[in-house]
């Protein structure tokens, strides 16, 4: 992994008006970088600000203040240019249900300026990799949760992005498919030097995949280190070696990061 930042986040803040008339800070002045060819994990309990952070990196949520730069280019000024190199998948968003999977993916490719037979072949290649080639002609709304998750991963990778943002990429997948998906993501990193920012609640997955982990709590980044180094920060409650999950539970329950 090189130390060239492909994504630089500086002093990013997101506040929302709260129901009591005050202000709720969802993301509190966070700064970090994602390096070329790195898999960076974003961990934190529910409501820590992970999804808000990812949404701001896609401009589907406006930042209250702060800056984001992709490849040194100001994202808020050059949104379309920057997103040309960014793929995104989330368990929580979808595609029009009445279109077939293939049509949805073809339309998605066109939004990136792709098209024609080459695009169709690329889509078929990624549908095969993720084991969902057989659903290509099915309406998207008929897919199971696991199939939908894999189609969303095809969507994220088919435009051959340099950066991929993944919001819980293996949620709703069975252990075997989740394993294959993890292998594919790590292969993309190894072979194509794709940089990946991912959120997950699966600590084993984060330990296996991530070079570095950011831990968020109440909107702030409270730790930034390798999974092994984070696990070593706490004393295990059992006689076994502490894991990242032990560390996560420690922080989520209010322990010192």
């Amino acid at each position: 992994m090189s130390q060239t930042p492909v994504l630089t986040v500086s002093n990013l803040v997101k506040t929302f008006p709260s129901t009591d008339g005050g202000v709720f800070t969802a993301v509190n002045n966070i700064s970090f970088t994602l390096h070329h060819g790195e898999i960076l994990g974003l961990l934190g309990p529910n409501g820590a600000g992970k999804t808000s952070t990812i949404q701001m990196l896609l401009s589907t949520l406006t930042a209250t203040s702060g800056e984001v730069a992709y490849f040194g280019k100001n994202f808020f000024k050059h949104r379309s240019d920057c997103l040309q190199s960014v793929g995104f998948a989330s368990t929580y968003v979808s595609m029009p249900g009445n279109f077939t999977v293939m049509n949805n993916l073809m339309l998605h490719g066109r939004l990136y300026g792709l098209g024609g037979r080459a695009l169709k072949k690329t889509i078929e290649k990624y549908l095969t990799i993720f084991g969902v080639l057989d659903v290509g002609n099915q309406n998207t709304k008929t897919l199971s949760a696991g199939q939908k998750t894999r189609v969303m991963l095809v969507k994220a990778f088919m435009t051959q992005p340099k950066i991929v943002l993944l919001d819980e990429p293996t949620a709703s997948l069975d252990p075997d498919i989740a394993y294959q998906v993890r292998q594919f993501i790590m292969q993309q990193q190894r072979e194509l030097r794709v940089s990946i920012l991912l959120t997950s609640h699966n600590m084993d997955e984060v330990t296996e995949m991530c070079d570095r982990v950011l831990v968020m709590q109440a909107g702030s980044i409270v730790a930034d280190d390798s999974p092994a180094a984070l696990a070593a920060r706490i004393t295990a409650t059992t006689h076994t070696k502490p894991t990242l999950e032990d560390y996560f539970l420690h922080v989520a329950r209010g322990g010192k990061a």
Partner: protein
Amino acid sequence: MSFSMRRVRAVMLRNIMAELTNFGRLMDAIYWPTIDIMLWGMTSSWLAQSEQQIPNLVLVIMTGLVFWQIVMRASYEISVGLLEEVWSRSFVTLFSTPLSINEWIFGVMLMGVLKTILVLLFGVGIVWAFYTLNIFSFGWMLIPFSFALIMFGWVVGFLGAAVIVYKGDRVSSLPWVFAFLFAPFSAVYYPVALLPNWLQSIALCLPTSYIFEGMRSVIATGEFPVKDFAMSMGLNAVYLTCALMLFRFMFEKSRARGFDRL
């Protein structure tokens, strides 16, 4: 178990609560009857009051019916198109790509034009097939008015979309409500002069009243009413600019709250 009025009351209460909290059901109960009574009441009144024979009466009504569809289609293409993205939870998918809001706006406007051409051809064909009436029997003077109607359809569409992009599917009946809101004041089937004075003031602020008056004038005299057309285009330009500004403002306001909630 005996029949219980308490449970009957619970059912009624449940329906009352659904009625009060559901925008669509409220509209069904109040809005549509009002619009229907106004629109068809005025049309009947015009027909009854006309002492002299109205020339080409059926053609006038059919032209109104067919051309009002243009406003509806151009409008639906924008507002229902947006609503479908919300229903399928694909709004984030769409706007996390390089697609810009201006590209989206331009795309749905062009789709409105295409859909309108199809609907117009279909409508004109149906009128010909069922009533052997040719809407274009007065030449192609109605075509410029078609474009003016598309523009007004865009205005209505973007006004609806401005609310949908912020409120999401809580206002899912809005595209239909908005499209018909302007019908009684647009003098689609009857002249503006038939409306009460205060409604005439509203009608004269709408480009559609000039369009339909102009179209009736084409049917009655065979001459193109330049003034009506110019007024409709001028008003359309102002309203379309305002509608686009409002839509963009609401789009950004919605983005500030996060598209993932849509």
